[in-house]
């Protein structure tokens, strides 16, 4: 039982991060039916930008709280600018192209972002400075660390904020209208180009926060870290029903828990033959199971389009 609850806490932490990243995939898909495979690398850029700023400021003698705040803000600015630029340069010219073209562009963009980051930050592992308080809550042997609590609460706040924006404001209404029928949205006076750009910027902002969370949680960053993280978040988005915001949140949390449970129990279940380093397998087992059994995802609409 202890293992179960502990892995639940760990899984929800991980799942909060997946959910933030999955929202970026699902928002872009919802509005233009494009899988932005470079999204994981936007998370990486946010992570490395945040990490290097925090490390630098801590070196300058800044207190941890202010260094982290500044790091998050800079990562936000960098990723939002990057998201805006990606849409403008890589996807907008292909808006009317066959769907395969932007997909290939996305993969190319992912490689470009990784290689430019390798030039900027080097090909080695970057470590997060040991500045975060190590206080934790303990209850019957189950430990919730301070950083886990911050990640879960901050992620929930951001996700709630996004849902309110999309469901309750005039801007969110324009976003949903653009997703459903861009031509008619224009007839209503919606500048759909601006709405699409905004969707990328919002998704990238969530990616920036998720990136800093990842490096703060695992204490390490690397220029290839966006690949696996992106694939898992994409899996989470598909699990929840791609295009559906609440689905991305649900899929992210669920995937985090599945992965943590898998990592926690796989050793016992296989008599020690497989260890927790096989945890990545579970995300993709989930992806395969969803695609075979329920391709629309948990909250997805019935698919109408042929690919």
């Amino acid at each position, binding site marked *: 039982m202890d293992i179960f609850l502990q892995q639940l806490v760990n899984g929800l932490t991980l799942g909060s991060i997946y959910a933030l990243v999955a929202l970026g995939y699902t928002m872009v898909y919802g509005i233009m039916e494009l899988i932005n495979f470079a999204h994981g690398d936007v998370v990486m850029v946010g992570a490395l930008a945040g990490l290097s700023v925090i490390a630098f400021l801590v070196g300058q003698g800044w207190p941890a709280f202010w260094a982290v705040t500044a790091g998050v803000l800079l990562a936000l600015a960098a990723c939002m600018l990057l998201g805006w630029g990606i849409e403008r340069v890589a996807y907008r010219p292909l808006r009317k192209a066959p769907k395969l073209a932007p997909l290939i562009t996305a993969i190319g963009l992912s490689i470009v972002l990784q290689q430019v980051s390798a030039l900027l930050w080097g090909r080695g592992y970057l470590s997060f400075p040991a500045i975060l308080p190590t206080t934790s809550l303990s209850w019957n042997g189950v430990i919730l660390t301070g950083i886990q609590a911050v990640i879960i609460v901050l992620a929930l706040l951001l996700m709630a904020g996004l849902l309110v924006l999309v469901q309750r404001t005039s801007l969110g*209404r324009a976003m*949903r*209208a653009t997703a459903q*029928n861009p*031509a008619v*949205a224009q007839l*209503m006076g*919606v500048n759909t180009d601006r709405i699409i750009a905004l969707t990328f910027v919002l998704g990238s902002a969530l990616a920036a926060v998720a990136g800093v969370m990842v490096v703060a949680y695992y204490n390490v960053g690397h220029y290839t870290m966006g690949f696996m993280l992106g694939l898992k978040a994409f899996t989470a988005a598909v699990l929840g029903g791609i295009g559906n915001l609440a689905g991305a949140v649900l899929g992210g949390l669920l995937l985090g828990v599945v992965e943590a449970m898998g990592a926690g129990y796989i050793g016992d279940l296989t008599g020690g033959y497989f260890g927790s380093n096989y945890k990545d397998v579970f995300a993709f087992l989930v992806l395969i199971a969803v695609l075979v059994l329920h391709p629309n995802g948990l909250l997805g609409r019935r698919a109408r389009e042929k690919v």
Partner: protein
Amino acid sequence: MSPLLEVSGLEVRYGGIHAVRSLNLEVGAGERVTLIGANGAGKSSVLNVLAGLVKPVAGKLTYDGSLLTQVPAWQRVGLGVALVPEGRGIFPRLTIEENLLMGAYHRALGASLAQELDHVYGLFARLRERRHQVAGTLSGGEQQMLALGRALMAKPRLLMLDEPSMGLAPLMVDRIFEVIGKIAAEGVTLLLVEQNARLALELCDRAYVMESGRVVLSDSTAACIDNPLVRSAYLGEKTIAEVR
């Protein structure tokens, strides 16, 4: 006085298809004008050009004294040019009320919002009953009501309607045309594209008849109804070219 809308020398092509050929058209402020003709005559293309959804290869569009050609589609509704598109174009996963609010997206709505929604709900009681339902659950006729209501929320000066009767039961068609008449009576200028020529001619003041992308006839609707060519081509079965 110059007309509210003036189109001259309009040419529209889709790839190799020449959809509209050297078309001239005028709509005066407060006028009710209809564009009738067979399927594929180019009527919808004219409206889509005016709304900014289709780029013409040539032609001059003047609206309220200024050139419209370079104005992007999303800015035109702000000038008072609204289109209810063919097939209604409602947002199926927004609620009815959200669809109506989209109509007013381009202008700041203050205290008058509830009043304006009330005005639309007054015209279509059915929409008020179902205001919190998603619009995709409405029947075709109700969706057409919603599309009309949404266009009213835009407070247009020039309201363009593309085939409002399409796919609707006769009773519903009567109801829709009754409301269109009411809207026109409030002083909104009307440009109506319609396959049901009889209805369109009864409602409007002037008509343009289009065949194969060209205007083949323009006259007052009263004269059109008496015109034997129109009678046999559009209130009967043959085209003007065949009758000639």
